[in-house]
């Protein structure tokens, strides 16, 4: 017999346990959860912060390599309802960590090199250099 993580949904109106997910992917206790980004953030002794789509499906994992005891969501300055960009994590005696989330569009924008207006001379040089490979 051993403990393992569990997520449970309770209906406080009917006083019933509605959904139970024993989260078999993890053998660690879930110590912090928060609802945001149309899903659920869960973290615990497993060392992972997991974003779940609903109650059952983990759609994103962030390896933290420490035990998370508390989760706090940022104040959501962007004005987007139900969206989290930063998740603050209390990591026991290790201190506080912050995980920043963004969609894939943001990621590609960050990876793009900044563009500057080029001089005609530079453009000509590039063309010459490029075409020179074919006309040697």
């Amino acid at each position, binding site marked *: 017999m051993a*403990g*393992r*993580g569990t997520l449970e949904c309770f209906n*406080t109106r009917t006083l019933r346990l509605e959904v139970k997910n024993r989260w078999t992917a993890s053998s660690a*206790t*879930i110590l912090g959860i928060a609802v945001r980004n149309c899903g659920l953030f869960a973290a615990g002794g497993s060392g992972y912060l997991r974003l779940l789509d609903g109650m059952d499906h983990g759609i994103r994992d962030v390896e933290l390599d420490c035990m998370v005891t508390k989760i706090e969501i940022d104040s959501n300055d962007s004005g987007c309802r139900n969206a989290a960009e930063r998740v603050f994590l209390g990591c026991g005696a290790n201190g506080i960590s912050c995980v920043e989330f963004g969609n894939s569009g943001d990621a590609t924008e960050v990876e793009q090199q900044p563009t500057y207006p080029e001089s005609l001379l530079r453009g000509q040089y590039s063309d010459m250099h490029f075409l020179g490979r074919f006309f040697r």
Partner: protein
Amino acid sequence: MTTGKLTELYNFGKSAGGMGRNLITTFRQLNTSTLLFGSFPAGLHLVDLRHPSAVVKSADLPKAPSALQATPLCVREAINAPNFVVSGRFPSILLYDLRRGLNTCSPIYSGADSLSSMTVVSNDRVIAGGSYRGIIFL
């Protein structure tokens, strides 16, 4: 805004004769004037922040006779209702109505070993996370 000012809301040392047998395990501000905190081994306490020198109400969490403790670990207030839920080192979620005090609660049995964190999803749904004592097949 005044920063850096420390106000002592409650001190177990004074009421318990300084024995240090109680440990605050969770707290939550339910509204502008009400602070609720839980303590080891099984305490639940309400503080009126307008008169923060004393605990207004205090009660033990219900626990099975065989259980050594029923330590509260998480308190969350309901949305638009004077209710709050308590979870901890016991296999149920406890639903309290603030208007009825701390002595009456409605338990929702889960069977978990311990539920250490909760989040309120909607008016009538709470998701809790913790650990389940089950069998692991290797």
